[in-house]
């Protein structure tokens, strides 16, 4: 007998985010009206965030296997083999909606959630990264959001004790009402000691571990599956509150009981808390699960079954333990001061039964809760191709030197030191390359191997051409890993889009996924984990399509990684890759000319591979002395960044404008053609490199020489490197302190 709590009305069904046809599906599935608790469980399992109902059919196109892949998508995190009996476990996940409503806690619990995903699999976290998108700097909420999100990421990761080594920060008015907080965590485990969610064995005790359950976060996942309106702040109670101290204890306790061989299956309680974790453990193991909610440790009095099943209180785990090891596991958890309670058992019935106060509050078919979630092939329209901008028609509004100074001090290109200095990036003593380079490099244990890590995407390209933009996001991650000398291995993707019920948004999604898929295949760069965040819209205005890519690469010897800083005066500066001078969707066109227009640069994946392999070889043979990939802002910005990182200037000689067939000077220096790197080599090595390049048909040309205290572009006034640095470093601190800042000329 299932007691009827509030009556299930069409209004209540709608409030749970379930569409009428989805409710009909529930009625058909269970043959009766669901109880209030059951309705809550369905809404938790069938929302977009947990069920991937709009995205699943397209995600199946992604390449998820490869030589190094141990575990692809579908588990808490992806797992790849990095040699020496070790595995790298990693994933990126969004916490967008909560971070907009309550930036500190939203971002903090985003970090907590992704760390838990990694150590649930038996891995000790060794690094975090993130990808942040904020609204226009002039929007009244932006400062508050930047400040809160950065403090929240730092507050959680610093206390937990993992270095936050890299990431990206961008600003655009399309994120005014929906910021993006994508957090990535990376951990290490032994390849033969990976833990999974699937329960096995009938009559096994299901154990609840970690913090107590409270009323925070109820319906968090449902919120993350809806658009925002005018009153989104009212959703604040759905945001969880993080406790990094509890998470640190949970980490140590979990790794300890895993090492002692106590664990059969483990699943963290993330989105949709107890519901999602219990259902997944049972469904993946082809078993039923019975929960007794009277045993669940609660932080608050008189919690109902509905509240307990939907709470998203943080720092909790569900496990199936070996019965003979239960006492040992409990002692370890008690030592760490954490709650430990047997709250249920596995059954052979494949039913999900929830008891509370002696009554059955839910009795549902467990496989169907997951597998029979609605699956949509939503209609989509591909966006019209935008015209290719003829660089010759762009009249430079200012001299190149002035444009360079302006771009270097612009919101998207300026130094993000103000952000990453709030993250402990040196803890654990393995950070080889700190934030600010192309990719972070983190030593694996005592070496000699190291992991290279990066997050990338260029949303304005994705908006202009989802397919090319999707390709570009993957290619840039691959390029950034290559630029430090790493062999790119695999990626995690975090796909952030608007409302999928709108065909043009679905078109962006489908295009980006196809582009990502194509690039992953061409670059042998499989996807092993990921997350989809849809409904990033406010009042019908969607974010820029933002498929963040988190890339992982491997260095055989961490001491051989390349950095972007010039190393000495008098070295040859070489440009690898060919330059048409592509200005469509470039930052030069947007921030200097005030035009957000045109088709984005095309990505030639064969050229990416060829050019990247050539550069990696130069690094491995210790011929390259400095390496930097060319991306946002183009060649001039790349060279300026190399100069600023070292304090050494450069004299650039490539007089491209004099050639009748070449691009204009501005297009050459600021064009965002892909598959390019700037590399320095010793003067006496330059000719050999150019010869070798022509043998293997990689376009390489010399563009200048390092040295002096100024950066001099052809026919331009010299710019002091110190002046560039000042502009580069000052924009963000000035902006955040409420003074200075503002937006560069040309941008509305």
């Amino acid at each position, binding site marked *: 007998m299932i007691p009827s709590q509030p009556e299930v009305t069409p209004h209540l069904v709608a409030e749970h985010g379930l569409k009428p046809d989805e409710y009909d599906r529930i009625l058909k599935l269970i043959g009766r009206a669901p109880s209030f608790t059951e309705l809550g469980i369905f809404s938790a399992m069938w929302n977009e965030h947990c069920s991937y109902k709009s995205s699943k059919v397209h995600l199946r196109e992604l390449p998820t296997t490869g030589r190094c892949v141990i575990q692809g998508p579908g588990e808490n995190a992806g797992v790849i083999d990095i040699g020496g009996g070790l595995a790298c476990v990693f994933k990126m996940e969004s916490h967008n909606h909560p971070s907009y409503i309550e930036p500190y806690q939203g971002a903090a619990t985003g970090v907590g959630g992704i760390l838990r995903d990694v150590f649930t699999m038996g891995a000790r976290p060794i690094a975090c990264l993130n990808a942040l998108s904020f609204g226009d700097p002039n929007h009244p909420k932006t400062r508050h959001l930047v400040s809160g999100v950065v*403090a929240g990421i730092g507050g959680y990761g610093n206390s937990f004790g993992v270095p936050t080594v890299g990431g990206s920060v961008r600003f655009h008015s399309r994120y005014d009402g929906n910021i993006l907080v994508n957090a990535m965590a990376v951990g290490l485990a032994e390849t033969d000691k990976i833990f999974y969610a699937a329960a096995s064995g009938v009559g096994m005790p299901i154990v609840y571990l970690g913090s107590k359950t409270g009323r925070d976060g109820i319906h968090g996942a449902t919120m993350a599956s809806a658009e925002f309106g005018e009153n989104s702040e009212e959703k604040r109670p759905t945001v969880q509150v993080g406790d990094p*101290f509890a998470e640190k204890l949970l980490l140590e306790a979990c790794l300890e009981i895993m090492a002692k061989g106590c664990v059969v299956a483990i699943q963290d309680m993330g989105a949709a808390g107890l519901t999602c974790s219990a259902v997944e453990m049972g469904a993946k193991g082809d078993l039923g699960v019975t929960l007794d909610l009277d045993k669940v440790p609660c932080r608050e009095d008189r919690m109902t079954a509905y509240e307990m099943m939907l709470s998203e209180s943080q720092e909790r785990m569900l496990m199936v333990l070996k019965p003979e090891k239960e006492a040992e596991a409990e002692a370890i958890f008690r030592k760490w001061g954490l709650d430990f309670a047997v709250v249920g058992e596995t059954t052979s019935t494949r039913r999900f039964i929830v008891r509370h106060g002696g009554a059955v509050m839910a009795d549902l078919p467990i496989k169907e809760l997951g597998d029979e979630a609605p699956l949509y092939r939503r209609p989509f329209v591909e966006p019209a191709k935008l015209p290719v901008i003829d660089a010759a028609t762009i009249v430079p509004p200012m001299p190149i030197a002035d444009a360079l100074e302006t771009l270097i001090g612009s919101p998207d290109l300026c130094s993000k030191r103000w952000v990453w200095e709030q993250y402990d*990036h040196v803890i654990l003593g393995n950070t*080889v390359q700190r934030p600010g380079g192309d990719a972070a490099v983190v030593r694996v244990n005592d070496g000699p191997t190291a992991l290279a890590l990066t997050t990338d995407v260029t949303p304005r390209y994705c908006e202009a051409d989802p397919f090319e933009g999707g390709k570009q996001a993957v290619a840039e991650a691959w390029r950034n890993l290559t630029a430090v000398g790493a062999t790119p291995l695999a990626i995690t993707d975090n796909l952030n889009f608007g409302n999928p019920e709108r065909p043009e948004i679905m078109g962006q999604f489908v295009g980006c996924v196809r582009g990502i898929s194509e690039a992953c295949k061409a670059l042998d760069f499989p996807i092993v984990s990921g997350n989809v965040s849809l409904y990033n819209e406010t009042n019908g205005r969607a974010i820029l399509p933002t498929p963040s890519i988190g890339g992982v690469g491997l260095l055989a010897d961490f001491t051989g990684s390349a950095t972007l800083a010039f190393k000495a005066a008098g070295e040859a500066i070489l440009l690898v890759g060919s330059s048409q001078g592509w200005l469509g969707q470039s930052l030069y066109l947007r921030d200097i000319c005030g035009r957000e227009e045109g088709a984005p640069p095309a990505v030639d994946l064969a050229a990416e591979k060829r050019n990247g392999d050539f550069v990696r070889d130069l690094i491995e043979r210790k011929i390259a002395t400095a390496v930097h990939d060319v991306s946002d802002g183009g060649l001039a910005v790349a060279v300026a960044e190399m100069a600023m990182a070292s304090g050494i200037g450069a004299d650039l000689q490539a007089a491209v404008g004099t050639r009748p067939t070449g691009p204009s000077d501005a297009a050459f220096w600021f064009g965002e053609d892909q598959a390019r790197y700037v590399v320095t080599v010793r003067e006496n090595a330059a000719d050999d490199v150019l010869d070798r390049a022509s043998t293997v048909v990689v376009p390489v040309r010399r563009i200048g020489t390092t040295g002096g205290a100024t950066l001099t572009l052809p026919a331009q006034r010299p710019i002091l490197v110190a002046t560039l640095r000042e502009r580069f470093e000052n924009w963000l601190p000035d902006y955040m302190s409420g003074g200075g800042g503002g937006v560069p000329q040309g941008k509305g």
Partner: protein
Amino acid sequence: MKAAVIVFPGINRERDMARTLKLVSGRSPAMVWHADTALPAGIDLAVVPGGFSYGDYLRCGAIAARAPIMDAVRAFAAKGGLVLGVCNGFQILCEAGLLQGVLMRNARLKFICRNVYLRVERSDTPFTRGYNAGQVICVPAAHGEGNYIADADTISRLEGEGRVIFRYTSPDGTCAPEWNFNGATNAIAGIVNARGNVLGMMPHPENHVEAALGPTDGRALFQGLEVHLGRAA
């Protein structure tokens, strides 16, 4: 050097510290749990590492200072044993009454992780014999509450008795507000007790010890201790 590293729940730089002690002395330190009541017999250095003991809830170091093991650390210090507290360890030693003063929120109220420059004020302590007086070293700081403060009498006594061991300066050793990033009184980064056997410091020498990862200026602190303890033994 036979060291013990105290582990409180929420401490997170104990591995960094243990690794550095092993690197310099060849010997792994004993890891001592907060609920224990005694230090291992025969140790000659007790280290309270960095982190967020008990989440830094209530007040940094306040709960850890009252943990069972701290009575043993106090007794060890009272007998002249060397005690090193880094970052949260410094905060804990202040809260435990082994050092004077308190660490407040950084002047700009933000957690800051960056390489900082420290002028070594004295080289005649067990902790700094690996350095020259006046030498400037580069080590990373990573904290939100490192703004050292004490009443005027305590400050003048610390200064008068030469108990300020490390000060935030420019790379060439000049004191200036822009280099005193957390706003500490007199740019104080590290102090010793009156007897000179307990050192607390905010920055992390244990994170700058390997050439392959960058500067190694932190190493001499541990090498100096190794030499000092080798002679004492």
